[in-house]
């Protein structure tokens, strides 16, 4: 449909997040970050939280941006909406990106608006040809407006649509292929959605274009049950990362290599040190993979004696 898509493919010269652990930036932690300068790969903020005229939020984000790499993560673009994207919101986002020059911009495969109502949740879309065309057009529009490629995040969902004609990984792969956007792989969302829909997370991961992963999200979930008594996991962002998600993350990293990894925590936010400890755990996984890659390259030049 357009020639700019191939240009949008992330290139060596494009800004990227460092392949390290990062944390969501919370106003309660501004002072601690600036006074202690923690060893952290990057910070991430929700774009809409900083779309305010002035005051402490823009001030502290600017100061922290001077010292750290930044990921801007949108929650209000409503890329999956049936309606056209909001031009005013696109302009506000472009201004934000121009001001803070983040290494990454990401948004969700979801919708959150209907008419002029903003529903403040990430709502699911059916995986159909019509949705695919619409989502691709919207991703194209965002990328054109920003003049850079974006990352698209796989959703946590609680319901599926009878109308869907393709799997979620198939759908996402096709969006990535057609638009040249990258993938924000939310490993917690994979676990949550696979439990919620009786899928195999290992197969799900391998069905995605893992070479296009630009960032990983890790978060905590809450456990409920559905009407049949089966577990229903809620993407709460209100708990530490679960062990099962850490395990899936380690598996993902062996497939993707080291990738910038965010510890997401938006509810019941603990002390900064607690989050930092989770980030350091992710860093150890990333370092382990980097070490493994080096070890692998050494091992192939060796003859390994296997005991009989």
């Amino acid at each position, binding site marked *: 449909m357009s020639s700019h898509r191939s240009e949008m493919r992330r290139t060596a010269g494009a800004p990227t997040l460092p392949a390290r652990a990062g944390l969501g930036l919370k106003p309660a932690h501004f002072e601690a970050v600036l006074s202690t300068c923690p060893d952290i790969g990057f910070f991430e903020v929700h774009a*809409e939280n900083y*779309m305010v005229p002035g005051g402490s939020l823009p001030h502290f984000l600017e100061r922290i941006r001077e010292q750290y790499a930044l990921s801007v993560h949108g929650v209000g673009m409503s890329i999956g909406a049936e309606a056209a994207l909001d031009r005013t919101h696109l302009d506000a986002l472009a201004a934000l990106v121009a001001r803070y020059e983040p290494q990454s911009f990401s948004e969700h495969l979801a919708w959150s608006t*209907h*008419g002029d109502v903003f529903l*403040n949740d990430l709502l699911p879309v059916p995986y159909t040809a019509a949705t695919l065309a619409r989502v691709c057009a919207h991703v194209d529009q965002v990328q054109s407006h920003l003049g850079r490629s974006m990352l698209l995040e796989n959703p946590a969902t*609680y319901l599926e649509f009878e*109308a869907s004609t393709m799997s979620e990984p198939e759908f996402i792969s096709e969006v990535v292929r057609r638009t040249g956007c990258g993938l924000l792989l939310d490993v917690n969302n994979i676990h949550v959605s696979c439990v919620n829909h009786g899928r195999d997370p290992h197969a799900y991961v391998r069905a995605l274009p893992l070479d296009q992963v630009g960032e990983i999200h890790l978060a905590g979930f809450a456990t409920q049950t559905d009407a*049949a008594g*089966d577990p229903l996991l809620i993407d709460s962002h209100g708990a530490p990362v679960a062990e099962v998600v850490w395990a899936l993350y380690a598996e993902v990293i062996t497939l993707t290599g080291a990738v910038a990894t965010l510890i997401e925590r938006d509810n019941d936010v603990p002390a900064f040190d607690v989050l930092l400890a989770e980030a350091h755990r992710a860093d150890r996984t990333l370092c382990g993979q980097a070490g493994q890659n080096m070890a692998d390259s050494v091992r192939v030049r060796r003859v390994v004696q296997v005991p009989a």
Partner: protein
Amino acid sequence: MNGAMHVGQGDFAAALLDAGRECPRGLRTWNGSDPNARFAVYRNNVLVSLVDALADTFPVCCELVGETFFRAMARVFVTDHPPRARVLAFYGREFPAFVSTFAPAASVPYLADVARLEMTRLEACHAADALPLPLSEIAAVLATPAQLPGLRVRLHPSVAVLRSKYAVHSLWAAHQGEGDLSAVDPMLAEAVLVLRAGFDVRCVLLDPASAVFIDDLVHGAELGAAHHAASLLDPAFDLAAALGLVLQHEIITARLTGDHDHEHTC
């Protein structure tokens, strides 16, 4: 097309905001369980996140009526007035007016004005930045008293004056640990100057005439006209004291001259 029921986002959105509705047809679950139980997760996410946002913005209101009452009231507001903007920072601008007409809250007549004060504080928190007019400029203005009646100033974007029939400042302050709530007579009229100093949002209690004076300045009145209006309300209005308050809080950011708001700024 596979012939399956298409779920429009309009139906989905309408069911989200109406707990009495069934979830749309065309949704499925892997284990054949009732999709309504799962749809409730989305409905809950929407309601709870927006009620939480209101609880964050109106903490004193929440304390005044108790969390249970506040959250029940906020749920009604969210359903009737869902956000119309993707930036949630200012969600709740219609909440004070809603509270003033919310019958179950009628026994707390001052609640709506406390909500107005909390919303005004939030607006001040995120208002645009502006530097105060330098002291040298202020001194130059004060050195030519003959020009003062015709002087117009621009006040900091965070500045607002709230005038209430109720003791909104005392009620708010008591919930910040300043003063004794039981000693507050909520039925006494109070006026408050809201401003941001640095990143600190402040509430300053004003006498009624000073409130008229500063509010008129906020709205671009000439100093002489604002003085006149304040004196009409209270013949003992102390212009020097009111100007002193304005200067003390450094809320003048520009001097406006002529008819076209030509600005002298730092």
